[in-house]
């Protein structure tokens, strides 16, 4: 115990605690609850039955009232612990409830009905995960469709982004041609043009090229990211030109130089861009919302928002689907966090 305390309290300089140390730990601990708490709460809630979700105050863990089959009854009955008039505690099954009076039976003596005031009984509960919250939407076609659409958009957009951006970055970093600086300037200038500024005309352009209400209409406008070109170009500038000259002496065509030399050597930067592209495309909302109108083309984000906007919000399904939507991003976070934080710290990418 004292070792734990020592471990926790060890600090710079070794002298006593001052207010900054206390503040640090208060902030960090509060950070855990505030940052992780909501997501954890979401996951816990997603396993609750609709009845448990409607409860106030809510329980932390998903609970369900225990049930038993009682002889003479077709459906399982809920178990309650009841304080009997004689002061003893007894476990009874509830048959039905009329006003403030519950009719109950002892599961071991199913013939005798006991009338109990509902204030006298508390449900017998245990932790139970309502996995049907997940199973039902996954069995319905809609959600699976959305999932498939999202995966398709994310994978395709990422592949095309990596390919086109790396080709452009190669040209912009390793060739000298007229107008190169102009192209670079154009790309940098549009780094800051957000989607919302060109939303209306982009919509008409996408319509004009016949991509409205198609997944390609979601993918293509996002792939020529100036950020990606910029990031890759900065990286490729560090690859020595002599290497390309050596390859040219080795009979490599320019295309071979690109994919045999440049691409493998730019792998770290490509990996960073790939991670970001996956997160970006998976999370995209406004553009798919604008461009997709047929329900079977919705991506997860749009689909979720639609569910949540329905008059009769079915929270138990929505929470479960939100968790599913979160999974890939959480995986990326767990496995690749290092690359992402390095990428952000290095280039201010987001």
């Amino acid at each position, binding site marked *: 115990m004292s070792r734990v305390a020592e471990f926790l309290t060890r600090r710079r300089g070794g002298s006593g605690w001052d207010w900054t140390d206390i503040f640090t730990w208060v902030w960090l601990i509060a950070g855990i609850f505030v940052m992780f708490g909501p997501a954890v709460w979401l996951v816990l809630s997603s396993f609750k039955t609709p009845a448990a979700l409607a409860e106030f105050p809510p329980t932390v863990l998903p609970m369900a009232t225990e049930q038993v089959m009682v002889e003479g009854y077709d459906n399982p009955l809920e178990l309650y612990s009841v304080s009997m008039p004689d002061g003893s505690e007894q476990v009874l099954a509830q048959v039905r409830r009329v006003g403030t009076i519950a009719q109950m039976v002892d599961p071991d003596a199913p013939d005798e009905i006991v009338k109990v005031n509902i204030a006298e009984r508390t449900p017998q509960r245990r932790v139970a995960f309502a996995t049907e919250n997940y199973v039902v939407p996954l069995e319905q076609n809609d959600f699976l469709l959305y999932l498939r659409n999202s995966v398709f958009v994310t994978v395709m957009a990422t592949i095309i982004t990596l390919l086109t951006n790396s080709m452009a970055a190669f040209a912009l970093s390793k060739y000298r041609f007229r107008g190169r600086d102009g192209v670079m300037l154009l790309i940098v200038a549009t780094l800051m043009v957000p989607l919302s500024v060109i939303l209306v005309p982009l919509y008409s352009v996408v319509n004009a090229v016949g991509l409205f209400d198609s997944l390609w209409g979601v993918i293509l406008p996002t792939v020529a990211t100036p950020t990606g070109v910029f990031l890759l170009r900065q990286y490729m500038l560090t690859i*020595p030109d*002599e*290497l390309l*000259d*050596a*390859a*040219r*002496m*080795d*009979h*490599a*065509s320019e295309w*071979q130089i690109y994919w*045999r*030399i440049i691409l*493998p*050597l730019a792998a770290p930067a490509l990996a960073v861009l790939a991670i970001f592209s996956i997160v970006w495309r998976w999370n995209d909302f406004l553009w798919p919302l604008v461009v997709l109108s047929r329900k079977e083309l919705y991506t997860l984000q749009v689909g979720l928002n639609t569910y949540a906007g329905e008059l009769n919000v079915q929270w138990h399904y929505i929470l479960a689907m939100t968790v599913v939507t979160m999974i890939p991003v959480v995986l990326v976070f767990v496995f690749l966090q290092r690359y992402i934080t390095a990428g952000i710290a290095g280039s201010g990418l987001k």
Partner: protein
Amino acid sequence: MGQITLSDIQRAYGNVKVLHDINLDIADGEFVVLVGPSGCGKSTLLRLLSGLDKPTAGRIEIDGKDVTQVSAADRGLAMVFQSYALYPHMSVRQNLAFGLENIQMPKAEIAERITEAARMLEITDYLDRRPGQLSGGQKQRVAIGRAVVRNPTAFLLDEPLSNLDAELRISTRAEISALHDRLKTTMIYVTHDQVEAMTLADRIVVMRAGRIEQVGRPLDLYNTPANLFVAGFIGAPRMNLLPVKIAEAGPQSVRVEGAGGLSIMVAADGSALQPGTDATLGIRPHDIRTGTGGDGSFTATVDLMEALGPETVAHATTDDGQKILAVLNGQDTTKAGDGISFAFDAGRTHLFDAEGQRLPPPRT
């Protein structure tokens, strides 16, 4: 075959001319070294030869064929780069094979060539390593190996030893020399180290500011430098260059006079010179001895004596402030601040006119 001709080669970057009218003939199997100070255009010239860059004007011929517009890959040359330029993501074997695969050479032949080259360069043990796992000297060998497996008509080497430490440089230099003896392929070698140039070259090309100053065999350059630049550039330590005045000038001999009582008659054709004009007298430090008993002599004040054992390096200053360096045989007891008298032979001097050109030999 590997006979190369450069005629009137020019190269400009924008308005800046970095090569002016380069003319050069390289015989098959010759080892030619390009030397010159940094930025004089050696690498540029080599890149033009390789085809990685194209000249602004002029003609390049290999074995009599005009290749000026032929791409780098199709000239049949191989290049060794200063930074080695090994592909970092490929193993040594893949590095060697890359160029051969690109011309669709059969796998068996590739393997055979790699084995052969690896044996020759003693890199067999690390064929499966990546360049990052090799030392500088090993990388250098792999870089040379990559050129060797191509079986090129000529090797182009751009300062291949400059990234190695002094000791390794000497041994690798010897290896390159041995490689040339064995392969008998034309080699064009760029360096700014004149010791490398002297030891390796069949012929040295001295360049300055985009021009060729002199082309010749190493000892010819050493013994009869064509101008002040070559005189100062070739030979270590540097030749002493004393400002002198022409006292008498004739078609057979020229007499010059300088500070410290210097007066000497040099055999040269001075018929174009006027007495009283400026000239420069060059004497290599190794050709100076103490005393007064030579064809010429002068006095100076010693600044520093460096006793190396078998010889002594004297740093001195003449009356008119000219720094002199002399390498004296044996040991010498003269101290800093003392006066000293230097003697030398007329046959070991080099006389340059006011433009810095060597005077022609005496008319016969």
